[in-house]
């Protein structure tokens, strides 16, 4: 499904600020995998997701999605097959446009129809209302409201819907609940899980919440300094406790200190 081979990303190359963000990453995902990634700030989690999505230029290595090499493809071309939701709720939606128009934009690549056809047709509106209903937030009654009027949680739910509406092969979630209050975050995570199960999406989710990282998905990846240092799968993952992971965190930090 997704194969990442020997991926390397360096920031500020050939300057004094040179930083290796991803150091020869190898990763293979099977269809339907739900991977959670945890790690310190600067571990390379976001860089990994951004390079899969095409927002970061890679130095070396290959990214292969469904037997297609997408390493050098521009991000809007990858977007046909990959959906991404960012931490900042304002990234995923256009604030001065209506909920309906936002959803229409998300489905636009889906049907390669006439660009001069009307954007909000009756059948479109009916379809969007159905989609919005599945979120359970009452947004289906506000289809003509500007997205800028929505709360962060609502916007994030809409972003999630927009990222998944065209059934992407891969869903990338970059701490998409981190900017929300705990109650809303829980709700959004529940919606996320629901969409992923319903559409059987292959997903990578970054989180800072170790509890969630253990609770959700079938794989857990721990990253540190641009490396994947540990992968837990299925059984092994479900047996993990927060303290186990915390210990691992502590170990890696001491290891690093000794090396230095």
């Amino acid at each position, binding site marked *: 499904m997704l194969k990442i081979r020997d991926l390397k990303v360096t920031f500020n190359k050939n300057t004094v600020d040179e930083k290796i963000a991803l150091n020869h990453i190898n990763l293979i995902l099977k269809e339907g995998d739900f991977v959670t990634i945890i790690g310190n700030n600067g571990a390379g989690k976001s860089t990994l997701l951004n390079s899969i*999505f095409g927002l970061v230029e890679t130095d070396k290595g290959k990214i292969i999605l469904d037997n297609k090499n997408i390493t050098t493809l521009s*991000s*809007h*071309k990858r*977007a*046909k097959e990959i*959906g*991404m939701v960012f931490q900042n709720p*304002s*990234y*995923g*939606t*256009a*604030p*001065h*446009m209506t909920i309906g*128009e*936002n959803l*229409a*934009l*998300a489905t*636009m*690549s889906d049907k390669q*129809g*006439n*660009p*001069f*056809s*009307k*954007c*909000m047709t009756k059948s479109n509106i009916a379809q969007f209302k159905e989609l919005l209903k599945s979120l359970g937030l009452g947004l289906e009654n506000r289809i003509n409201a500007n997205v800028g009027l929505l709360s962060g949680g609502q916007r994030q739910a809409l972003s999630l819907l*927009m*990222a998944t509406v065209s059934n992407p092969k891969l869903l990338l979630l970059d701490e998409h609940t981190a900017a929300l209050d705990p109650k809303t975050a829980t709700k959004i995570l529940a919606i996320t899980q629901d969409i992923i199960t319903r559409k059987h999406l292959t997903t990578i989710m970054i989180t800072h919440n170790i509890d969630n990282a253990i609770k959700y998905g079938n794989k857990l990846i721990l990253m540190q300094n641009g490396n994947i240092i540990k992968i837990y799968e299925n059984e092994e993952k479900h047996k993990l406790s927060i303290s186990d992971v915390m210990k691992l965190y502590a170990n890696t930090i001491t290891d690093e200190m000794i090396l230095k």
Partner: protein
Amino acid sequence: MSANLIITFLEIGLIFGLLAMGIYITFIILDIPDLTVDGSFTFGASISAMLCLHNLPILGLILGFLAGAMAGVATSVMNTKLKINVILAGILTMTGLYSINFWVTKKTPSFSLNGGKTIFSVFDKYESIKFLNSSLNKILTLLLIFLIVIFIIFLLNRFFKTRMGVAIRATGDNEMMINSSSISTDLMKIIAFAIANGLVGLSGALFIQRDNSYTSSVGVGMMVIGLASIIIGEAIFRRRKIGVAMIIVTLGAVMYRFLYTCALLIPRIDPIDIKIITVVLIVIILGIQLLIQKIKKRRAKC
């Protein structure tokens, strides 16, 4: 103010409405400053003028639009594909067009269209008929311009509700989101620049036909006039949904032309002074808007 004066400011105001709509697309919808405008206005005007001399005024308007659109594409391709700063790209196109416009007019800097035909020539025969304190041909000219502007407003409103139109609006609203939704923002920008400068070219093409003469300096300061129209329109009517935005900027352009005409009625002010008056007017209006916002914020805090 005499009837003729009123008709004149309405006519020119409406023509500048087309210009203002074009600038609205780049400046407000895309949120990108486009300095091609002065060049593309003249480009549309020069092409239109030459075709009028060959008795092809309607083709002049169509090619005037296309000429402007080409100028817009040039600027936008420089910006999106060659990564040239958009302000510089606009200046480059505008400067290049200076020479091109002289090629178009065969190195003549200014001439009258009397030898040829404009779209308003058909009304000439009504000149002697009096109507509403003016002559019928003037009323008909105004009416034709009005219909053209209404038609363009109608088309634009339709366009901005189509899939492509919505994608262009979203490119200006949240470029990052559009990039992650498999639409090419570069292409959307190029199309928007083409339409915007096409409207500016059409405005120039119509302007010289109404004026019945062409000068190579006809486009100087058009950018500022367009901006003034948008600012006046938005100051009076507030920003609304896209459907009425085009009407508002057109009314802004008419309003601007009204203020311009009033200013000229003041003794000792002549056309040369108008540009500085416009600039000062824009700065004052923008300053007042900021002040109002600040006062509102302070009130909200209390």
